[in-house]
């Protein structure tokens, strides 16, 4: 079997993985990047709106403290505050660094990086390139990797001496030596041959889990591999009950249902209307946001030109609020003909401006739905988009609880609390990708000796099993049933009985998945690949459902019909998932959320905190304020 020795193996070639790998290589580590698709095709490529960073280029009142506050509010104060702090402070440097590596963002009049409005962000904050920011980000990082390889070629005569990409290669198991990570095992998609990485440090940057849902903006890659690999290696996942349903996915035609309609449409002036033509978002401003959002259309419209004297339009509320509102309108019978609501920019901006600012949306609707968005409204509805939950990590280094394991990007948990603000993911990838790469490099430096790999034979047998079975379950059918179950029973609005029912279905599907069979050879065989992915999707779905059942409140990306209110008591609790090494059972435990540092909590007004914190915490706040 093919075997490679590295210092750091990064699993994932999206924004987080590439930034981590670049950092590890810049710190002199021999680094491998492993990814399921071709180089440059990871999910990050699809991001549209932008990367949030308080550079203050458009509104000079912006700074890290404002960004920090917005992030905490967006996450309903459940965020890991240290991550939110680092993110807000470091995002500008990470964006500027991209520019020095060749990225070309859209510009302000004075030649700086332009920034656009987005939901939940107080000031225009998203660095962007039209509506294809993710492409710019991934291409820049990809080209940075190439630049480092060119350097290595000059220095060592081999471009791949210090950083190499293993594309179309899927990792199915992390390997350990005692408690610590010692490598990773996987297969080449192209040939089906196995591959073994012998490495003391692994950075997980595998993205999300959306493929457990039918209606999703996510691609086939999002089968929760990193979440599952971490669990199976003994690490813990937090916040798995929080899933972001993006308010605006396409609803028609059926085959593109779920594909994303960027929030920039609203950031640039687009409005939501129901079948009666009403801008219904005015009816859904929750109490905690009452003083920040406009109550009349006139004020909302003035805000685009004068943000100092007007409040924001309610279309730009955080995503969880907008998604629930759309859901409620459709349920109340005020939806659009194809089961969504109307999103209109055609009456808000001149056609030329729409095609300039939203070129890929214009193209997407024209090509896929025969709709010209400069002339008519789009029809949109919620779609499974992003998971806030993920591997529990140390904020500063990205280290998981298993020595040698690191995680960054969507696969990690904590940064976004119960709900992520748009634009905060791309910046998260850069900030914590870099930190995880540095964390892994530092960990390797501190090791006395290299660990040795174990468990290879078991990993091989597990991977081959579906090909050796005949007449077993069709993996595509098992997958479809899981998607339908999660969508219908653990979706945007949840209830106890339905979640319990979903858990029963998941148990049955686990049995069926164990019996999944794939015909054909080992060469590029998608049926086989899917059969192997089922283990991960089922494990992750179990975590989501179990945590969702336990959390008896509604907050951010977790809405319980039977517990509609937000509870200050629950805010102090994190739900932590762990699993047995064979993946047979998931346990969920409560963990106390650490209190916010005094100087950070001091950035908020008491009146705002009263909406979220317990009496006990408010007393701590008063003490901290008094002290400073």
């Amino acid at each position, binding site marked *: 079997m093919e075997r490679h020795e590295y210092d750091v193996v990064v699993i994932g070639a999206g924004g987080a993985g590439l930034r981590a790998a670049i950092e590890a290589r810049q710190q002199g580590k021999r680094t491998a990047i492993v990814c399921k*698709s*071709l180089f*440059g*095709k990871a*999910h990050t*490529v*699809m991001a549209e709106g932008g990367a949030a960073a308080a550079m203050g280029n458009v509104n000079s009142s912006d700074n890290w403290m404002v960004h920090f506050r917005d992030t905490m509010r967006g996450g309903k104060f459940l965020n890991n505050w240290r991550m939110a702090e680092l993110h807000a402070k470091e995002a*500008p*440097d990470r964006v*500027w660094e991209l*520019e*020095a*590596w*060749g990225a*070309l963002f*859209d*510009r302000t009049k*004075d*030649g*700086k990086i*332009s920034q656009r409005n987005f939901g939940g962000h107080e000031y225009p904050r998203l660095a962007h*390139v*039209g509506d*294809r920011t993710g*492409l710019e980000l991934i291409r820049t990082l990809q*080209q*940075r990797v*190439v*630049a480092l390889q*060119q350097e290595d070629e000059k220095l060592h005569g081999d471009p791949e001496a210090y950083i190499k990409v293993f594309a179309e290669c899927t990792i199915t198991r992390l390997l350990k030596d005692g408690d610590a990570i010692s490598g990773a095992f996987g297969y080449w998609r*192209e040939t089906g041959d196995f591959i073994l990485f012998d490495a003391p440090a692994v950075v997980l940057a595998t993205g999300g889990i959306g493929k457990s849902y039918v209606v999703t903006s996510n*691609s*086939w*890659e999002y089968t929760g591999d990193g979440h599952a690999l971490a669990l199976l290696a003994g690490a813990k996942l937090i916040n798995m009950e929080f899933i972001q349903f993006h308010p605006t996915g396409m609803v*028609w*035609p*059926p*085959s*593109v249902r779920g*594909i*994303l309609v960027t929030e920039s449409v609203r950031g640039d002036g687009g409005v939501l209307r129901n079948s009666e033509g009403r801008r219904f978002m005015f009816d859904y401003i929750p109490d905690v946001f009452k003083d920040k959002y406009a109550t009349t259309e006139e004020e909302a419209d003035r805000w685009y030109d004068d943000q100092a004297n007007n409040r924001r339009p309610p279309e730009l509320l955080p995503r969880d609020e907008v998604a629930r509102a759309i859901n409620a309108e459709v349920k109340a019978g005020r939806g659009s003909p194809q089961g969504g609501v109307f999103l209109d920019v055609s009456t808000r901006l001149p056609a030329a401006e729409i095609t300039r600012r939203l070129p*890929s949306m214009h*193209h997407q609707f024209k*090509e*896929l*739905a025969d709709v010209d968005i400069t002339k008519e409204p789009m029809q949109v509805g919620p779609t499974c988009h992003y998971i806030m939950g993920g591997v529990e990590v140390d904020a500063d280094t990205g280290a998981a609880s298993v020595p040698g394991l690191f995680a960054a990007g969507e696969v990690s948990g904590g940064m976004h609390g119960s709900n992520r603000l748009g634009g905060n993911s791309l910046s998260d990838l850069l900030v914590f990708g870099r930190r995880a790469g540095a964390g892994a490099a530092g960990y390797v430096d501190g090791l006395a000796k290299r660990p040795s790999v174990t468990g290879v034979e078991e990993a091989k047998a597990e991977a081959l099993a579906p090909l050796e079975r005949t007449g077993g379950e069709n*993996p*595509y*059918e098992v997958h*479809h049933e899981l998607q339908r179950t999660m969508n219908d029973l653990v979706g945007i609005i949840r209830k106890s009985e339905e979640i319990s029912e979903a858990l029963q279905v998941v148990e049955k599907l686990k049995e069926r998945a164990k019996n999944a069979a*794939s*015909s*054909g*050879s080992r*060469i*590029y*065989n*998608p*049926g*086989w690949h899917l059969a192997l992915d089922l283990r991960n999707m089922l494990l992750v779905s179990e975590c989501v459902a179990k945590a969702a059942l336990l959390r008896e409140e509604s907050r951010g990306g977790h809405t319980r019909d039977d517990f509609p209110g937000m509870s200050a008591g629950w805010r102090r609790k994190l739900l932590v998932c762990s699993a047995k090494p064979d993946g047979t059972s998931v346990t969920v435990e409560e963990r106390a959320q650490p209190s916010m540092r005094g100087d950070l909590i001091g950035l908020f007004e008491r009146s705002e905190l009263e909406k979220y914190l317990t009496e006990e915490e408010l007393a701590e706040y008063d003490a901290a304020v008094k002290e400073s």
Partner: protein
Amino acid sequence: MGYKAKFRIWRGEGGEGRLEDFTVEVNEGEVVLDVIHRLQATQTPDLAVRWNCKAGKCGSCSMEINGRPRLGCMTRMSTFEESETITVTPLRTFPVIKDLVTDVSFNYQKAREVPSFTPPADVKPGEYRMQQVDVERSQEFRKCIECFMCQNVCHVIRDHEENKPNFSGPRYFIRIAELDMHPYDVAERKEPAQEEHGLGYCNITKCCTEVCPEHIKITDNAIIPMKERVVDRKYDPLVWLGSKIFKRQR
């Protein structure tokens, strides 16, 4: 609304293969990639195809549909007659791995041969100042989703394996043009385009521009201007000097 469509799909691995016939259900609004996915789920679970975004953003699903390079996810079934047999084959210029999946490593090799962005040593991150009009030219080329269909269609390499070592192809001509037009790039780009990347092989047939799903004007905005300036440069060193000085003025 649904109907049964007739498909002929190239199937094979390890250098051998044949066209196989399928009859498969098609529903309203579907694209070719949806139909291929239905075949995977119901008839041929091991049919190999690349895809990611299903929205024309990642450039993974390039294939030849009725002989024309297309993105499978952006080719609507409604553009065909219901009675038509739709033939789907892999990109012809690259070796087939299996079914519709080809070995596109040629492109990644060529990417590594283009020297990276080279800013002046004294500009620090955060200090870049550029006007929108000055970045727009390069931004056009950065829209490229690396579907490699322009590479696939270019006759210089389509049926000429022997030209591959000396010819980077349109995808990399626009990469060079992008860097050349970048307000802060100080490296010499035009001469190497001609001498090392084979710009001279291109005889401006514009096939690349025609297939580009991002509608990048590969020939008019990248290749032709570079060819003109290569000529300038060859005859008159002052023109070259002038262009570099102009660039640094900003």
